[in-house]
């Protein structure tokens, strides 16, 4: 008598070829590494505005000495000049030297011309803070 043959389940060899997958992953990695651009660190320069949109501090309302920094574009070039009370300076370094001679308890009014680039206004404000002059306001038109 013939003995019944037991049906065996076929064994499956399961193999994934990793080489093309790794190739593609490396290609993607190289692409992202080459195109990545890190966000530069950001910070803030804090300032106060007149409450309820009022006219702000005027020379008559404060007992502090008021120093006006008039920031103007030099007509012939992209350069700027910062007109101080007694003299005119053309660099942040010169402005810092001037501000360092003044007492800390003063009110600085930055008066930029309308066309002066924002970065230069921030540069002047930054110089004021560098010289520990924290009472800085921006002049409004009119």
């Amino acid at each position, binding site marked *: 008598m013939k003995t019944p043959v*037991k049906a065996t389940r*076929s064994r499956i060899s399961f193999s994934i070829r990793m080489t093309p997958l790794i190739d593609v992953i490396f290609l993607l990695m190289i692409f992202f590494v080459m195109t990545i651009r890190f966000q530069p660190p950001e910070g803030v320069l804090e300032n106060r505005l007149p409450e*309820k949109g009022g006219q702000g501090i005027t020379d008559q309302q404060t007992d502090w000495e008021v120093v006006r920094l008039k920031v103007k574009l030099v007509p012939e070039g992209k350069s700027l000049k910062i007109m101080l009370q007694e003299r005119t300076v053309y660099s942040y370094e010169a402005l810092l030297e001037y501000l360092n001679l003044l007492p800390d308890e003063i009110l600085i009014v930055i008066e930029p011309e*309308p066309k002066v680039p924002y970065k230069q*206004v921030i540069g002047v404000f*930054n110089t004021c803070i560098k010289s520990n002059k924290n009472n800085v306001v921006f002049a409004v038109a009119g």
Partner: protein
Amino acid sequence: MRAFKKRPWASLVVNMTPLIDVVFLIIIFFIMMINFSDLLARKITLPTADEAREMSSPTEVTVTIKSDTLVFVGRDRVALPNLAEALARKIADPRKCTVHLRGDENLPYTMVQKVMEHVARSGVSRIAFTTRREPVPPLGED
């Protein structure tokens, strides 16, 4: 003795190539469908200030200025004449809020000044100029 019939081993190889093809096709489809216009509209170059402090204001609203026609409160584009109203709607308590001003470094100051006036009109008195925390380039150097 029982004799078991041995079946030949079935070899199953998973071909990854069509899978990767389809995945790439789907990735390309989604990349093409993403709407970058909003992101690009708010992409600006911030001015630099090495005295900028880390952002620490608890309640803040960001106003982004790219040009006179591209002003955003958060992610929403607003017309400049309606900026004060848009801010007033968004801010529950203006006394506790700080508005972060993100302006492109090449904006004329007059544009920033107008925005500051609108911020003041909305009742907010604390403003923070967002900058890159990097050394300020010398005046006239672009």
